[in-house]
């Protein structure tokens, strides 16, 4: 799995945030549009695209998009 693809799919869960905002270093919890529904959408996207179940506490502990990517990758390889 590639970080670039992951970021694109991550960004797709947002409707009003400009695509340029999403980088590996983006602190996504601080984005204005981020909400509980978007968090659930990201969890569902990761399940659908990568076959990995992310729990709420893993979303919470991820500061940047890359942090979340790393969790998904390590769970996928496990």
């Amino acid at each position, binding site marked *: 799995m590639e970080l670039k693809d992951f970021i694109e799919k991550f960004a797709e869960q947002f409707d009003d945030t400009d695509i340029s905002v999403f980088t590996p270093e983006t602190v996504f919890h601080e984005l204005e549009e981020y909400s*509980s529904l978007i968090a659930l*959408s990201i969890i569902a996207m990761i399940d659908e695209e990568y076959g990995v179940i992310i729990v709420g506490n893993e979303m919470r502990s991820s500061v940047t998009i890359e942090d979340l990517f790393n969790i998904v990758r390590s769970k996928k390889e496990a």
Partner: protein
Amino acid sequence: MAYNPFTLEGKKILITGAAGGIGRATAVECAKLGATLILTDINEDGLNSTLAILEGDGHVCLTANLTSQEALDDLVAQLPMLDGFVSNAGVTKPTPVKFINKDDLERIMSINTFAPIYLTQRLCKKKKFNEGASIVFTVSVGGVFTTAPGNAMYGSSKGALQVFMKNVALEMAPKVRCNSVNPGMVNTNLAGRSYSDEDKERDMQTYPLRRYGEPKDVALAIVYLLSDASSWVTGHALIIDGGKTLY
């Protein structure tokens, strides 16, 4: 002997989803109040753990996958005449509408809605209820009284079950009563791992009584509906939600 209008002495009661959570707590309370129980679940180890903590004798466990028509037939064939039936088995998977898929939706509807409907149908057809028996469905406030992000599949399954409950209440009267309990968020394994501890803490503050429910909170409401204390109550949805739906 002490006065107790909630006694279940002499009653035979079937409980589904008895391997944990609200089902297990209901079994524990019913046994304490004198009922003889038939417990079912797909999880055999969990069922045996429940059985091990019950007071009294004569309780039995029947492991069954309630989403299988054959398993339902087998289960019903093994049952004695019943004074109570608690349909409690349930699952969820918080998912936004745009990510709903056939596998998840069919699984949730099969366990939460179709299995209780098919099991009730068979119990009625096979005349398994004694005069004065009581049916209780564990529904939810979700889908019936509240909506929440990601709750469309679960809410739809419970909304359908709520409507079914009322129809059973009407058709089975006056011989059998039928009601539901409608809990808010209860501390069980069902209570979403999709939500972080921080999310749950924040959500809890939206409950006027400032906590999630415990399985026993719901179990004792089920006891009331099973007991003769509620003998003039049928078709009722009993909300147990720490005040959540007051808003």
